[in-house]
């Protein structure tokens, strides 16, 4: 027998022990590899056994879906009727009942546009025109007054469309403003630099609630008589100014991470400041700071719910007002779970998209 044959027969004969492969092997490796981990696994399983089945029972088996508030009080499980019976008010608030297809259509259009834009292959010039047209149609649907659509005052805009309006426009406007502020803070021009620093530090020094109050109550006092600015617009501007300051600091971090050599290489070719920033520095710096930027965007999205304090009826406020109705009083867990799911869908898709974007942008450059 040659040596090669010996090796071959040996490798064929020996198989890994049963305890190292398959389900048993996995469990041994991941759940019971040591005394402490075994105890933790058992305790966790016990807790899950105590919590999950009752939860499923409450939410799905014993729950009621299409009843009145009275019938709900006799049900053993969740009363999802509070959501289904009031879903139109929760979502659309005071928007005229017969015209609620209009905000619905506007939202669907918005989702469609967002879905279309998330593909980087579509990031071309025509996308700008698509958005301008889309925004016009959405505005028309919401506001009406043209093409036989009845006019709806913006004071009646409420619920989910208002939340989406405040957050999506808040975030898309705050991002470029934040980038400009970050560049300003690192500018060689003293005036630019100091203006940016003062702005960023002032805004970061106050809570969003106080900015919203100022926009709602103090700001109108300074306007000349007879001039009013839409309340939603004022809240929107407050959110933009607030978020931009935070984005500015994150982007500044990305700019500082860039090596001096990148600036020098760009400058030594004769690129001017704006070309250097746009073509060389920002594409790299903004990519580095995608994770913290998305954190800010997510928290800004959730912070839009603070507009309740200046009496704007966003999604959270319409839900609260349903719960204030005596018929539905006491069913707040069900209603808030529903709202939480909507917020979660928004936040989770943002963070999921950021991960996808990061992966795509660094595809070729890895080394």
């Amino acid at each position: 027998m040659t040596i090669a044959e010996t090796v071959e027969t040996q490798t064929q004969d020996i198989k890994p022990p049963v305890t190292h492969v398959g389900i048993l092997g996995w469990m041994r490796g991941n759940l019971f590899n040591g005394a402490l981990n075994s105890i933790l696994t058992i305790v966790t399983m016990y807790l899950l056994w105590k919590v999950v089945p009752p939860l499923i029972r409450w939410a799905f088996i014993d729950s009621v879906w299409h009843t009145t508030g009275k019938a709900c009080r006799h049900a053993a499980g969740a009363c999802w009727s509070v959501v289904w019976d009031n879903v139109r008010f929760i979502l659309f608030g005071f928007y005229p009942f017969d015209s609620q297809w209009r905000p619905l259509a506007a939202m669907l259009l918005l989702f469609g546009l967002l879905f279309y834009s998330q593909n980087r292959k579509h990031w071309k010039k025509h996308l700008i025109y698509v958005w301008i047209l889309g925004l016009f149609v959405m505005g028309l649907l919401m506001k009406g007054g043209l093409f036989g659509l009845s006019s709806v005052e913006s004071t009646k805009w409420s619920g989910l469309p208002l939340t989406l309006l405040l957050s999506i426009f808040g975030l898309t406007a705050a991002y470029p403003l934040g980038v400009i502020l970050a560049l300003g803070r690192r500018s060689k021009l003293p005036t630019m630099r100091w203006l940016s620093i003062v702005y960023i530090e002032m805004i970061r020094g106050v809570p969003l609630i106080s900015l919203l109050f100022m926009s709602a109550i103090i700001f109108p006092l300074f306007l000349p008589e007879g001039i009013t600015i839409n309340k939603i617009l004022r809240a929107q501007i407050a959110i933009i100014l607030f978020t931009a300051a935070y984005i500015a600091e994150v982007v500044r971090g990305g700019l500082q991470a860039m090596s001096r050599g990148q600036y020098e290489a760009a400058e030594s070719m004769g690129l001017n400041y704006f070309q250097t920033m746009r073509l060389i520095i920002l594409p790299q710096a903004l990519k580095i700071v995608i994770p913290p930027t998305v954190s800010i965007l997510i928290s800004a999205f959730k912070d839009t719910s603070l507009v309740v304090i200046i009496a704007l009826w966003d999604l959270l406020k319409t839900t609260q007002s349903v719960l204030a109705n005596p018929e539905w009083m006491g069913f707040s867990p069900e209603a808030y779970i529903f709202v939480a799911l909507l917020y979660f869908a928004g936040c989770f898709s943002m963070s999921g998209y950021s991960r996808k974007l990061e992966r795509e942008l660094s595809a070729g450059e890895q080394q």
Partner: protein
Amino acid sequence: MKAQETRELQNGQSDNAMVEMIDMHKWFGDFHVLQGINLRVEKGERIVICGPSGSGKSTLIRCINRLEEHQKGRIIVDGTELTHNIKNIEKIRAEVGMVFQHFNLFPHLTIVDNLTLGPLWVRKVPKAEAEETAMFYLEKVHIAEQAHKYPGQLSGGQQQRVAIARSLCMKPKLMLFDEPTSALDPEMIKEVLDVMIELAQEGMTMLVVTHEMGFAKSVAHRVLFMDFGRIVEANTPVEFFDNPQHERTKLFLSQILH
């Protein structure tokens, strides 16, 4: 061949200067890094600058495209004086190519995009033409097959050759090399030097900060030795290496030539 070139350069007219520095000074804070530099670089001339670290040689060539700002004296590049005029600075930078020690390629762009960026945005060349030029120079530095990779996927020597091609795409009148082989592994130095020698043979005006004395001997018209912010000695390579005049030059040569 080189001797004849040198003679022609010496007979050149006064308007034949590519770079002229007149009593140029620079300080970093209190540190007087360049102390009265007088230097004239003729068109087509190739100069190697050497000297101990901290002697100001990198700073000297970085003043030519104003990556560093001089504070006293004059620098005239191809007939244009360097002042605070930003338009003049950008014009000069477009005419002067620079190769860095650490390559400084743009990692988020493919090789070919690295090369077309300058021509597209500074020279406003049409895209097809810029890409054609880019491929021409990639061929020239023997790296055309990597055109659609990213810089991070290339070796150091390949990156430096791309960096040279990137500068050449701007059709510069003068090339500055700031220790182009210092960051490379030994086996990659030759491939970069070969490209630089080819460039020299085509008559490019070059200012090279390097300690590659073989390169200096074979292509330089003049070798400058700098120490403590001054040009201590400037001579033809033969004279410089065989018959150094100053003690400091001798000491330096004995240290690097072993």
